């Protein structure tokens, strides 16, 4: 499985929800290859199936058609190896556990590997060591989301699935978190050890600033309408948001999103 070069491979994914009154076709023939260590954003209008796609990749939902391979095997193998970390729009912390207790949760789950990272150093990483004994209801939205990120990193997964992780935050916090996540992602000493990130967002700025590559999904059912590499130098700082290449990317993406929606 390690001889696979692609980390995530999707082939002809389609999904139809049949639990409603009428079958709902949300994804149609989605294929992509994501190499190890790539930061990929998935952008598209509300309801086009981005969350559904992420849940399929994470093995939380079986697709109606098509195949998902993570390191050449079905998602459940990656789940079993604790190789997937998920962050949702809501932090979804356990309110009866402290910050440290929430971060430790994945390590208490059966079969957790010893390679898991200490809660202490994770809290350092997300800048919350002083809040280790706080309860979720004592945290701000941004802090809670940082705990959720630390929790997802606890088992040291190679694949991070993030579904609009900053979607519920205010603009200022959101901008700060963006660069914070980039810092965390880049904190791996060797670029080869970097985590593969699939990052769902509604924000064009967020997608460009963070990603190596942006996949645009549009339509109902959702299809891949564009797949763009972002060739901006790293490390990226907030200045990049005013640079000419950034603005070109933004125009290009805006065109793709508007055009396909019409």
């Amino acid at each position, binding site marked *: 499985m390690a001889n696979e070069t692609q980390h995530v491979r999707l082939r002809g994914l389609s999904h139809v929800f049949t639990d409603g009154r009428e079958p709902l076709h949300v994804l149609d023939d989605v294929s992509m290859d994501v190499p190890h260590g790539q930061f990929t954003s998935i952008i598209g209008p509300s309801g086009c199936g981005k969350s559904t796609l992420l849940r399929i990749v994470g093995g939380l939902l079986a697709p109606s058609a098509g195949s998902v391979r993570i390191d050449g095997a079905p998602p459940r193998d990656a789940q079993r190896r604790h190789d997937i970390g998920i962050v949702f729009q809501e932090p979804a912390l356990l309110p009866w556990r402290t910050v440290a207790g929430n971060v430790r949760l994945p390590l*208490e789950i059966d079969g957790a590997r010893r390679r898991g990272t200490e809660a202490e150093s994770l809290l350092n990483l997300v800048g919350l060591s002083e809040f280790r004994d706080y309860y979720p209801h004592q945290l701000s939205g941004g802090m809670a989301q940082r705990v959720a990120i630390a929790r997802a990193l606890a088992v040291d997964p190679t694949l991070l699935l993030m579904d609009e992780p900053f979607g519920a935050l205010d603009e200022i916090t959101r901008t700060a978190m963006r660069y914070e996540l980039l810092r965390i992602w880049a904190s791996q000493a060797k670029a080869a050890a970097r985590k593969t990130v699939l990052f769902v967002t509604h924000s064009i700025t967020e997608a460009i600033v963070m990603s190596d590559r942006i996949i645009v999904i549009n339509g109902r059912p959702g299809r891949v309408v564009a797949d763009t590499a972002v060739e901006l130098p790293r490390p990226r700082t907030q200045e990049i948001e005013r640079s000419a290449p950034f603005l070109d990317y933004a125009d290009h993406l805006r065109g793709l999103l508007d055009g396909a929606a019409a």
Partner: protein
Amino acid sequence: MNGRLSSILRGVAVYGLPPAIAFAVVIGLWEAYVAWRDVSILVVPAPSDVWERFFDDPGYFWEQGWWTLYEATLGLIAGSAVAITLAVIMAHSRPVERGLLPLAIAMKVTPLVAIAPVLIIIFGFGTTPKIFLAALLCFFPMLVNALIGFRDVDSGALEFMRSLRASPWSVFWKLRVPSSLPYLFSALRITYPLALVGAVIAEWFTGNRGLGFVVYSAAQNLRTPELFSAIAVLAVIGVVINIALSLLERRVLFWHESVRSTR
């Protein structure tokens, strides 16, 4: 002066005084009405008669109250244990839920106190029929609340655990059980008083001990001050249980909105 003590005193004054005054007014009106209309003590005793009878032998009433509380508590524990066990199975299996829920609802709509005489025929005059009836009355509310509680988990937290292939066992202990605690506490607030009802009613029919027995035999013999004393002890037990549950809930559910919003 100690700030904490003064804030406790203020709390007592703010929350304790109004009901105390209301209670005193009701007792005063009752006393006045009985004196004014010269109501026979065989029909309704004055509060002062009840007071006199109670303090004539308080140990007797507390002892009978203790029996009732004991039977009710054992019934509560037994009924809850069965209900929670079934709820765990039902929460993990829709077919079992579909099979058992209608039976449980049938139990709910049956006035179960009507079973009391049957229980005495089956179990005799000991504590068993009392515990059994108390358990029966507790069963349904506990089952429904536990079932909802085990199911009502945060979907994000559940998906997170599933993405690590957590076993149903660890999902149950780490997620479902803590999530169900608020529901179990609301259930206890309903079921503990129901358990008392069950124990008292079973005691009516068995005539040897407990406040239900005191109420029944006092009514038979028109000893109304004794009857009202027994009812007052039941009321005190009910209030004490409620306060104890509130205090426990505050400690256990410190993280839950229901507790935080009252702070």
